[in-house]
């Protein structure tokens, strides 16, 4: 059970009253999340969490201090407030900081709550999963994955009278079908549990796990045309968020955006927006500083337009605020939690048919984007369905492959984009996810493969 609007705002107001600072703001989130994890076609971890936390930020002489607590008794609130005040007293003024948000503009419509999703029971989810498991057993297929649902109430406010409150829900399922030594993957995320169909995801994963089951080939490392599905792109964007899009990466000079705002860096076909107002994505109306959300174009036809920023870093770096503060006091100073990559006019099937020799990738594993941040050089491996395409047809399964690739180069070599886009959840982001098409890219650099241990 999450806190209602009256309770949430009351807790924020108590914190603001206790702050006794030049300015103060606070966010209060209460969460009811329920995650059923499964493996070997049975639920092995099943959890339900009701938690709530308050983050208070005080501003004294333009210096900021932050404290977070999960206890809202008078003493605990006073203790958190004192810690935040003490921190602010020791901090330096934030250069260029023009103060907390004051304008109180109306919020855009962003319906984020679904009653049925908030009410779904553990038994309902278990029964839906049991049907999927039974379907798999008919073909000797085991499932692993997770089915998550949750509700949250999110409130924020500040000493300038800003008060925001909304409720949101989410539902997400991932299914990995394991057919002996081959696997396939499918995932979906929505504000509404009714739109998440474990059975359909199970079928999609089975298709991937059994495709070209008896035809395996190997490849030589090198540059290959590649077709990437949305879960693969979501992994890449997770790192782009850290090394290229955040206010902090812009200020510390590691972002490819530095010196390139308004210049062509990527290909024409690459447009990336942070959009939490799209009703077909994962709507959310405001950020934790209380600014109304609006679509923010990060990259427009290959040209970087702005990093995503909290207000203090927008002021400091001289950008217009983008309403991307998701954690008060975050040292990232902005994160894009609703990344929406523009699609095109193609279909995945047309991309496969148009490929003379290429590789089709379902998802990536363990991507790392810290190799050379200024070119967004990343490495990772493929998993849960990597296929060889020859003369327009899927002809074989490939082992999981290692790749090392500059994303500046990759997103300059987009050949086609699908019209259909899909939502992928990301583990670090309770507010949104990634909405991406299938993308065909020329010359992706594969450098190795997963090989079983040789006899000693």
């Amino acid at each position, binding site marked *: 059970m999450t806190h209602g609007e009256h309770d949430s705002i009351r807790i924020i107001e108590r914190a603001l009253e206790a702050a006794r600072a030049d300015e103060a703001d606070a966010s209060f989130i209460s969460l009811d999340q329920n*995650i059923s*994890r*499964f*493996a*070997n*076609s049975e*639920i*092995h*971890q*099943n*959890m*339900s*969490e*009701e938690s*709530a936390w308050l983050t208070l930020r005080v501003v004294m002489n333009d210096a*900021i201090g932050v*404290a*977070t*607590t*999960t*206890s809202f*008794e008078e003493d*605990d609130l006073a203790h*958190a407030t004192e810690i935040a005040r003490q921190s*602010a007293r*020791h*901090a330096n003024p934030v*250069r260029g900081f023009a103060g907390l948000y004051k304008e109180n503009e109306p919020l855009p419509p962003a319906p984020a709550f679904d009653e049925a999703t908030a009410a779904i*029971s*553990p038994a309902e989810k278990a029964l839906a*999963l*049991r049907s999927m498991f039974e379907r798999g057993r008919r073909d000797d297929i085991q499932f*692993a*994955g*997770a089915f*998550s649902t949750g509700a949250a109430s999110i409130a924020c406010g500040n000493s300038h009278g800003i008060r925001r409150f909304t409720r949101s829900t989410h539902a997400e399922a991932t299914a*990995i079908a*394991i057919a002996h030594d081959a696997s396939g993957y499918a995932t979906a995320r929505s504000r509404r549990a009714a739109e998440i169909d474990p059975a359909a995801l199970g079928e999609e994963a089975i298709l991937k796990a059994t495709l070209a089951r008896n035809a395996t080939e190997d490849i030589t490392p090198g540059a290959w045309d590649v077709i990437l599905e949305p879960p693969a792109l979501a992994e890449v964007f997770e790192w782009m968020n850290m090394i290229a899009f955040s206010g902090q990466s812009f200020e*510390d*000079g590691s972002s490819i955006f530095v010196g390139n705002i308004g210049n062509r860096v990527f290909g024409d076909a690459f447009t990336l927006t942070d959009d939490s107002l799209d009703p077909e994505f994962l709507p959310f109306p405001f950020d934790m500083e209380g600014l109304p959300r609006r679509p923010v174009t990060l990259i427009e036809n290959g040209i970087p337009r702005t990093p995503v920023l909290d207000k203090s870093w927008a002021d400091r770096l001289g950008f217009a605020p983008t309403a991307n503060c998701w954690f008060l006091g975050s*040292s990232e100073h902005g994160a894009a939690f609703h990344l929406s990559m523009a699609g095109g006019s193609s279909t995945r099937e047309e991309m496969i048919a148009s490929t003379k020799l290429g590789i089709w990738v379902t998802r990536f*594993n*363990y991507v*790392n984007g*810290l*190799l050379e941040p*200024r070119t967004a050089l990343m*490495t990772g*491996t493929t*998993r849960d369905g990597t296929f060889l395409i020859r003369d327009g047809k899927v002809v074989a399964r490939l082992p*999981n492959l*290692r790749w*090392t690739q500059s994303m500046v180069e990759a997103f300059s070599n987009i050949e086609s984009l699908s019209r259909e886009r899909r939502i992928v959840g990301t583990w*670090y982001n309770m507010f949104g996810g990634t909405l991406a098409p299938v993308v065909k890219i020329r010359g992706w650099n594969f*450098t190795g*493969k*997963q*090989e079983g241990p*040789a006899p*000693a």
Partner: protein
Amino acid sequence: MRPPRHQLEDALRSLRNSAIRYADIRFTCSEQQHVKIRNGEVDHLSSTTDRAVGVRVLSGNGWGFAATSDLSEPSILRAAKRAAEVAAASHLTATRPVILSDIEPHVASWSSEFRTDPFAVDIATKIDHLMNATERMRGDARIHQASGEISCYRQEKHFASTEGSFIEQTTTQMGGGIEAVAIDGSEFQRRTYPNPFGGDFQAEGWEFIERLDMPAKAETIRDEALALLSAPKAPVGRFDLIVGSAQLALQVHESCGHPTELDRAMGLEISLAGGSFLQPAMLGTFRYGSPIVNIVADATIEGSIGSFAFDDDGVPAQRFHLVEKGMFTGYLTGRDTAPAIGRASNGTVRAESASRIPIIRMTNINLEPGDVPLEQLIADTRRGILVETNKSWSIDDLRLNFQFGCEVAWEIEDGRIGRMLRNPLYTGSTPDFWRSCDAIADRNSWQIWGLPNCGKGDPMQTMRVAHGAPAARFRNVEMG
């Protein structure tokens, strides 16, 4: 606020359903403080206090878990009831019996040691210490960022089970590090001390920060970051590779720690982190590394952040081999997984806090030192590369194919350290790599490194683990 013992035990007693075979309850209070200085300013100063109670129930063959941050008695009782409902739902899909390895109940209390309480050191002292270190890295226009950070952590944990255990544990930890970022045109280089991502972490007090002596290392870090800007790029090809202690600690983490987690080997983590190439049938018969490779899990090391007295199953902390004389001999296990390989739990189940399900986690996973002084190891290398300090890491879903990037490398020619090299990458397959280990440096280069950010589970749990490692040499490793 702490719920009293009787309140935790009352919640367990409220679980009267005859299908319930086992239950436990944990309370945690986790406190963190983080101070970061960047370019002469306080960049980040925050404190977090997180309290939670979590109840875990085994009903039939289904596990259920429920947690709350509301520590009132009615809320704790509701969590217990919800955990039972969730366990009953899990049982609907169960196809195999859940067997728990036997343990004795324990009533005990334990705290990690420290000399100076990290939370008692005032913020001004922490800021001054970091300012002193970071100012020494500034001054050259190419140094784009000079930063330093100090973190304090304390977790108090109470555990009670239906088998009669009641265990109180408190760990106090401290971490810190500095970083210089140098930029020249399109070249971007980062150098850190003693490790990236917040530095090194130990279960100690402020004395650890004093021992790190970051101000004394600052100028070296600055100079190396600047030198990397114009250093030649590390070569591509096959080389004999000497891996420094801090980087080898991460290699142990990724290529031995994770694949020896029995839950991964049993497929229980496939949906997120993946599985393991080390399967139970390989226990005792698989050559993981060369005969000089010995890797132990040891949760009993004093002063390390991977240490504790009891895990979150209530099993005492232990020391045991994962790899002995190069052979794969052990897994990290918990009470509900160990029976699958015919063994008893070796006590490695932990949760980030009481709001998360306990799962198998690394403790202190250590590569045992060899008997060669590092200087001699270098002198015995005709043509090779020495790499130090992790920059990037990636490994496949079975923990076989890996690629690591390091902050810095040096050429070794005829037994001598030569030119500095930038952007070194090395890659390989786990057993091939460890089988190629032909020399391990002695205890003088052995150091235990605290890693406070090991991610696993859903929802993601960040666990504090550690790794002891010396430097070691690996033959014919692929670079680039």
